[in-house]
Structure formats: C-alpha cells, structure tokens
C-alpha cells in the first residue's frame, strides 16, 4: 500500500490549549497569566491552589476542591488567549 504523504507545518500557538491532565505547574509555566485565575479559585477551594496542588493535574484539582473542571479550563484559556 502506498500512502499519500504531506508534510505538516507546526500548528500555531492558538492550538496549544489547556488540557485536564496538565498540572497546575504545566499551566502556569506555559501561560504565566493564568496564575491570577487560580488565585480567583483559592477562596472556593479553601486554600492556595498554587501552593498546595502545584503538581496536581487539573482534573484532580477540580475533583479534590469540587470545582467545575470545564469552567476552570475555560477561564484559564480565556486569560491565556487560546
């Protein structure tokens, strides 16, 4: 079987979206402006997310602090301009 090949150029940064399995550190290190969003969720979480859950995937953060994962990611992507 002979396949048609196509060389794909790198996708633009816009496609570099935020994923539930990214850790808080992954997110804030790639999109520094998202730290403010996590701070906004601190009150609902009851503690500093960046202090206590820096190495946790977003899906665990949402589960552990009873946060809406989709909304969290939407809020993060909004400030990250994705």
């Amino acid at each position: 079987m002979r396949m048609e090949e196509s060389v794909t150029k790198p996708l633009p940064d816009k496609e570099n979206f935020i994923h539930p399995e990214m850790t808080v550190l992954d997110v804030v290190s790639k999109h520094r402006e998202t730290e403010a969003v996590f701070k906004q969720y601190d009150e609902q979480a009851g503690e500093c997310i960046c202090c206590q859950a820096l190495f946790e995937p977003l899906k665990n953060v949402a589960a552990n602090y009873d946060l809406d994962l989709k909304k969290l990611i939407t809020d993060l992507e909004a400030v990250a301009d994705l």
Partner: protein
Amino acid sequence: MKKELDCRGLACPAPVLQTKDAIETDHPDIIKVTVDNEASKQNVNRFLESQGFEVSVEQEGAEFHVIGKIEGGAVPDEPVAEKPETGQEKIMVMVANDCMGHGDDELGSKLMVSFLKTLKEMGDELWRLVFVNNGVKLTTEDAEVLPVLKEYEERGLQILVCGTCLTHFNLLDEKQVGETTNMLDIVTAIQLADKVINI
C-alpha cells in the same frame, strides 16, 4: 555551574517557576533556592527532585535554603525530544479518524486496520504514532487494531493519544494503549519529525 536564587518574599508558584527557568536556561550542577515559607520550600524541593536533583534543606531562622545537586547539570525540559539513528528519517504518522478515506465507513475501517498493521514495514523510521479526533477510538478496548498498537508500544514505539479528544468522546478511562498527551507535545513532535503523514 552553581546557581543561586533569592525567592524570599515570593509565594508559589513564583519560586518554582524561577527554579524551572534557571534549570532550563543555565543547566546548573548545583542550585540553591532561598525561600521563606513552608509551601515554597516543599514545592521547590519536590520540583528539584522531579528533575533528578538530590535535595537538601538548610533552615536559617525563618528562611529555608533548598539545595539541589545533580551530576552533569540538569537536562533541558524537552517533552518528546529524541534523536533517531544517524541516516534514518523520523516519520510521524498522525491518525485523525477511525477509518481510512471517505465513501464507505465499513471499508474504511478495514483499510485503517490494514494500514496500521502494515506500518511496521517502515521499520525503525516509524518514530511516533499520534491519534487525534475520531482516531482516538482506535486506542480503546473495543478497537480491532488494539493488539497491533499494543505490540508497537511494547517494541518501543511512542504512541501519543490526544487527551482533549478522549475527554470529548468520554473515553479517557477507556484508552488501553499510548500516552495521553496534549497539543504542545503534538506540536513539538511535528517540529522534531522529518516527515509527518496525515491519515
């Protein structure tokens, strides 16, 4: 090379981010990070350990000196970097559907199974197999091609599966093969590959 960071007065994640930047930029053998709160101490400690450093902590009053040591300097953070053997191309195959072509899905499914089985003919030049969109369904338990993919993985082929796509189809817990990944890894893989084949 020794690197010192004064992160006093900074709350997380700033000390960890500064530490990460310093490691990625300077690749120090020894790094000393001074912090003044417990969370930063623990997080810098954990981050350094995750990067392969041997970590010790010295307390001086209200300050903590988190000291990491590593032989040969830190390795830069490149999630999917891997060099092929000299003279070989790195071929990445990106599968965005669970069937091949358009017209008849039943035929397309058979063709896809045949295609994925035949990929082994690429030999060692087959470098990454990436599943996105409807293609992620091929990595789940019901997929006919699953044993073939597992065999590839056992042989060392890196299989990346789009996590957002799995989440979209509610298949995150159904994936049986490959590494759940994100768009950054996929884009990085595209940049590193010599050739990308889209199916």
